[in-house]
């Protein structure tokens, strides 16, 4: 079955530390890939997206993601996390419609 997997339900990092959130997909061909962020009580905000071309994409708020076809992965990274990055992060794929992973909740320690 086609799916989007975020293996980490909850991650805690210290402020200033680097961050990597994992996302794997299982689709026959490369779908369009997205990362969204959701702050508590808010809707979803697009961080970045990948359609084709350069496999390293830059997004807002200092985030980037790398598409690796061989691993069917689209991991989100940030070199130095800020306290305001604490939120829930969703990976999503667009084939015929948009499908989301279950999300990873990020906690930032002072």
């Amino acid at each position: 079955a086609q799916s989007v997997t975020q293996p980490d339900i909850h991650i805690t990092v210290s402020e200033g530390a680097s961050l990597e959130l994992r996302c794997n997909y299982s689709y026959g061909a490369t779908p369009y890939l997205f990362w969204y962020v959701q702050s508590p009580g808010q809707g979803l905000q697009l961080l970045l997206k990948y359609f084709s071309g350069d496999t390293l994409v830059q997004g807002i708020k200092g985030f980037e993601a790398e598409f690796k076809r061989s691993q069917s992965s689209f991991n989100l990274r940030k070199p130095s996390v800020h306290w305001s990055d604490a939120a829930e992060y969703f990976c999503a794929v667009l084939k015929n419609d948009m499908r989301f992973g279950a999300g990873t909740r990020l906690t930032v320690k002072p």
Partner: protein
Amino acid sequence: NAGVTQTPKFRVLKTGQSMTLLCAQDMNHEYMYWYRQDPGMGLRLIHYSVGEGTTAKGEVPDGYNVSRLKKQNFLLGLESAAPSQTSVYFCASRRRGPQETQYFGPGTRLLVL
């Protein structure tokens, strides 16, 4: 532009009651979507529409109906609410074309007692 708006923001229903959630967008988008968000399950697609007068089922359509009579509005109906429909509901819209960004509304929190 207001973007995507949802009405109401919060609602409490008793089992068996009906209600309609309204999604409105002012960006002239062709595609509109209804999702529900439950803890540990991410967002799941309920129904979607690719244009005025057309709707289609998503991943979890049972217990819901939708209508798209006007391009800017997408209504989600619950004919007989059940506790399992307690959730946060998000509407989204985007332009036609695979590389268009999907924009989300702020959500409607629904509690069914």
